């Protein structure tokens, strides 16, 4: 008993003080009630992510979470609730709040984009008060209006136009964020991690723009709920499906066609969405080849699908899936035998999500997630005369199965808590050989013992975030994340503090700052030039420890009206335990000693970013400028001295502009100008001796080789390009049918995709030459809505 009394009287400790504080603050707000519910599209029932819900009278407000839900604790009093969302008509609700209130607020889309959205409230738009730094929500409708290579709308190429983002090789969808590499981007599709986001060797992304509901891009000040990648988060949500009526769209493009369908299975209760596309150049060219000589081809295809069921106002279930595949193939039927060769890769993801509202203030998102990326190559041979068959398949990949729970809790108007957990089982296939058919018995069993990590690797994560409205000027998001990663009896773990804040020092102006520590427990064995499907994901090991990044961001936002945003941000980031292939390594088959292929080093990136955006009006668009530096340092490279990262571009300017011309026409352009990327080029040539002691000990032979500059010591010529588009909407509604003419690289600028030095003989003089990939390319695409 004594012990119990002693315990009861013991000092409460820090957690106790926090709970006590929350209780007291909550008590102060005892005269409050909760306004909660969903904000949805009035025409489709689609929930709107990031919609603003606020009372301009007292400044209290919130935004809908990633599932369209909001919870606002408000004094029991007269309420003017203003609900707004980009591209939708702002709505006002007036009522007296005397008890908890659940609402489903429908917003109507603006009939014609570009026409002014009525802004009724004089309160400052929420972007100023949101503590999050370095975050941009990509308007999905905008993705389809920006000129694109071969007419393929691509959200990753839109992200390339944002400040702080450097694209990879010309035309590709590679994303290098604030000096980071592509594997440091966490790409989520309905919360499932995607491990390869490219079709066609990186020239197209796997995202089907019609199926997307929202895309959030974060490059710094990472909230604690995100973890596992150092440089950015690309959080992509699929549409849930139209709850009110059937609708669809068919897109016919130069290289691919697609179909999109959505509608209710049971009105207002159950809906579906499905989007599928396929390239067809291989089908069109097939008649030009004979089966006897052999038929080659390449295609990519993908399918997004989602089911939604509303059990009650408190419970909803979603099942979404993505399946995508690229395949390069060759088949031949030749005098008695058939040969099939393939080289393919693709992702599968599935998300089973349950949204449950425990109380108006406590929202739960519970998920089972699956993700698999696989690369495979091989062939099969069938000898018809001898009745023999053999097939060989070599595959690599990574597979995740995880459970995730996110909880949003609003104890009082001053605090908004997010907390949750994740348990992940991860398998790495580092190389597996499958042999079937009549040769199976004769194959050396050693050949089949390839993969290293088919036994699961485990990860557990916990996070807590508090978005604290300190006063009308200051809001803070403070959080802590803990990750533990266990592989072969070794555990890597770490606490990762995150904090970001916004201080509105005068109307329309806000100062922002953040600090984040992020840990990445897996590495991608890849080269710096281009993303290849053979790139291998590998877990951290004692020789290749988890990667870490510390990032500090300071910035200022000015928003004179809802239409205009001016943003200035500076950042400083350090990276550690980053990997670089050893010189000459272009492909690795990960054996036990895979770490021998790589150097482990560190990096540093800093810069200044300017973003000016106009969201409303007949003319919309943005200007993005980045001044940046990005370096790497490895003891074994460049004599241990720091050297510029491959995509260290000092200046990067992108201008995107769209203009409505009357009711049915729209035009736009994108102009990009940036410093060239870095390259290592030869500066001298000389003779080497190859001596092979053997038959004659003194025998030797020679060849000439190059002496190269310091790593990435050259900068390629300035890159610039103008893309234009002209679009016709027969109904005047961009969500409906359209005919689009796009011209990529209008003035046919020959930009360098890569540079090499040719050597003249016998003078041995070097002649630098560049290879350009994409000249002026017009494209026409037709979109038919029904």
């Amino acid at each position, binding site marked *: 008993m004594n012990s119990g009394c002693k315990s009861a009287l013991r000092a409460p400790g820090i957690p106790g003080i926090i709970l006590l504080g929350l209780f007291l603050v909550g008590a102060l707000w005892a005269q409050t009630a909760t306004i909660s519910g969903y904000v949805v599209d009035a025409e489709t029932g689609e929930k709107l992510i990031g919609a603003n819900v606020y009372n301009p009278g007292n400044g209290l407000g919130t935004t809908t979470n990633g599932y369209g839900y909001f919870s606002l604790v408000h004094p029991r009093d007269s309420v003017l609730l203003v609900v707004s969302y980009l591209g939708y008509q702002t709505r006002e609700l007036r009522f007296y709040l005397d008890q908890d209130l659940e609402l489903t607020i429908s917003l109507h889309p603006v009939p014609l984009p570009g026409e002014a959205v009525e802004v009724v409230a004089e309160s400052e738009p929420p972007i100023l008060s949101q503590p999050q730094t370095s975050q941009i929500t990509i308007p999905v409708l905008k993705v389809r209006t920006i000129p694109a290579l071969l007419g393929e709308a691509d959200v990753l190429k839109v992200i390339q136009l944002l400040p702080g983002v450097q694209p990879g090789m010309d035309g590709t969808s590679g994303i290098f964020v604030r000096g980071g590499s592509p594997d440091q981007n966490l790409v989520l599709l309905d919360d499932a991690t995607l491990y390869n986001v490219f079709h066609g060797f990186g020239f197209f992304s796997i995202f089907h723009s019609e199926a997307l509901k929202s895309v959030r891009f974060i490059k710094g000040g990472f909230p604690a709920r995100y973890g596992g990648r150092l440089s950015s988060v690309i959080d992509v949500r699929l549409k849930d499906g139209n709850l009110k009526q059937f609708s669809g769209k068919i897109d016919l493009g130069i290289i691919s066609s697609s179909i999109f369908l959505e509608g209710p299975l049971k009105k207002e209760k159950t809906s579906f969405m499905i989007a599928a596309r396929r390239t067809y150049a291989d089908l069109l060219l097939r008649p030009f080849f004979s089966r006897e000589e052999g*038929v080659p081809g390449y295609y990519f295809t993908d399918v997004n699908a989602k089911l939604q069921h509303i059990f009650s106002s408190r419970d909803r279930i979603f099942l979404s899936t993505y399946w995508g595949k690229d395949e390069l193939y060759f088949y031949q039927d030749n005098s008695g035998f058939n040969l099939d060769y393939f080289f393919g890769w693709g992702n599968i993801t599935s998300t089973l999500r349950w949204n449950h509202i425990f109380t108006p203030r406590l929202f739960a998102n519970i998920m089972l997630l699956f993700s698999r990326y696989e690369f495979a190559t091989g062939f099969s041979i069938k000898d018809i005369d001898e009745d023999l068959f053999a097939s060989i398949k070599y595959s690599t990949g990574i597979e995740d199965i995880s459970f995730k729970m996110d909880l949003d809790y609003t104890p009082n108007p001053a605090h908004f808590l997010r907390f949750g957990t994740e348990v992940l089982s991860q398998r790495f296939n580092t190389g597996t050989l499958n042999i079937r058919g009549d040769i199976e018995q004769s194959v050396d069993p050693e050949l089949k013992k390839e993969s290293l990590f088919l036994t699961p690797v485990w990860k557990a994560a916990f996070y807590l975030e508090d978005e604290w409205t300190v006063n009308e000027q200051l809001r803070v998001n403070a959080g802590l994340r803990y990750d533990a990663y266990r592989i072969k009896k070794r555990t890597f773990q770490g606490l990762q503090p995150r904090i970001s804040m916004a201080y509105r020092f005068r109307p329309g102006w806000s100062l922002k700052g953040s600090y984040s520590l992020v840990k990445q427990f897996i590495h991608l064995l890849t080269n*710096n030039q281009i993303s290849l499907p053979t790139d291998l994901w590998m877990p951290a090991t004692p020789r290749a420890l988890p990667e870490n990044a510390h990032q500090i961001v300071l910035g200022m936002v000015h928003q004179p009206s809802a239409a205009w945003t001016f943003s200035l941000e500076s950042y400083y980031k350090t990276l550690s335990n980053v990997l670089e292939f050893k010189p*000459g390594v272009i492909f690795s088959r990960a054996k036990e000693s895979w770490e021998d292929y790589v150097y482990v080093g560190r990096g540093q990136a800093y810069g200044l970013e300017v973003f000016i955006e106009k969201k409303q009006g007949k003319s919309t668009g943005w200007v993005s400028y980045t001044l940046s530096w990005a370096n790497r340092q490895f003891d074994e490279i460049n004599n241990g001295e720091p050297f510029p990262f491959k995509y260290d571009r000092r200046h990067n300017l992108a201008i995107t502009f769209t203009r409505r011309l009357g009711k049915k026409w729209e035009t736009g352009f994108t102009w990009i100008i940036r410093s060239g990327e870095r390259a290592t080029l030869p500066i001298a040539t000389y003779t080497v001796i190859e001596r092979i002691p053997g038959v004659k000990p003194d025998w030797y032979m020679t060849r000439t080789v190059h002496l190269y500059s310091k790593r990435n010591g050259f900068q390629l010529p300035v890159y610039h390009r103008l893309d234009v588009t002209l679009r016709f909407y027969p109904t005047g509604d961009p969500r409906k049918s359209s005919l689009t003419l796009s011209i990529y690289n209008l003035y046919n600028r020959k930009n360098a995709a890569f540079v090499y030095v040719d050597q003249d003989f016998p003078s041995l003089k070097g002649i630098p030459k560049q290879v350009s990939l994409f000249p002026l390319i017009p494209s026409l695409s037709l979109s038919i809505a029904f």
Partner: protein
Amino acid sequence: MTGFRHGWLFFLLLIILPGCEQPVDIELPDYTPQLVVYSFFTPDAPWQVQVYNSVSMKTGGKIERIANATVELFANNTRLAELIPNNEGYTHPTLRPEKDTRYTLRVSAAGYDTVTASDQIPSPVPLKKVDFRIELGEPESTVYLDLEFSDPPEEKNYYNLGLSIFPKNNSQGYLVYFYSRDPMLLREMYLTQFVVENTFEDVEALFSDAIFDGKTYRLSLYFYVNFQQSTEYTLQINFMSISEAFFKYKRSLILQENTGESIFSDPVQIYSNVTNGLGVFAGYVVHRSQIVLTPPISRIR
């Protein structure tokens, strides 16, 4: 397979479209030509040093042997001699490299910076045991060879293995392609070659003691001979202990040859231990064994 070639063309057309190649306005930096020096020294052979020049890519020029260089040799920081020119470079009529001596080479020539390089002959590691067996086959028989040696502990050791074979009554032998699944050879192969095979195959093998430091190691390999062409062969095993500089130079050569100018990889800089210049100055020692291979009886000599 004509169709398949067309397939790649189709694929490139589809993805890359009409790629364009043209000279680009990039100014190559000024580069002052340097002396390029090579010398691989061993107690079995006289000193031999080759001296060339390098050529700037910006200005062009001609690669030549430098015939008027001053080549000086130092042993443990004491000047030994100046080498004299011969047909293949520079040599000395009497001096031979010795073990346990750190040699420094200093080369100077008009118009070039003076260069220096230092290295020494590594500790010799003899083969303790050589086992073999022959599996007769038609037309080629397989020779399985096991080589055992003790790696010196607490030091990094580097090796190079080559096999040459001499048919009966023929002094003009040839290098033998041999095969192995030895983990050390495979490890090195994966580091230097773009391959997916799990069998090493080459005429020589470069490796280190990274996975067997200080232990007795047994290296297994096999190769093929044709007893229909000759009823007897003499196999010469050249087991070399090489210096770190030799190893790094040789490995960078293999990497550079395998990578070429691939756009998927950063270029490979050939290793050099020559200060102010290029090339390599490296010591080695060879342990040679000979085996007479006859079907079905063989003996070690």
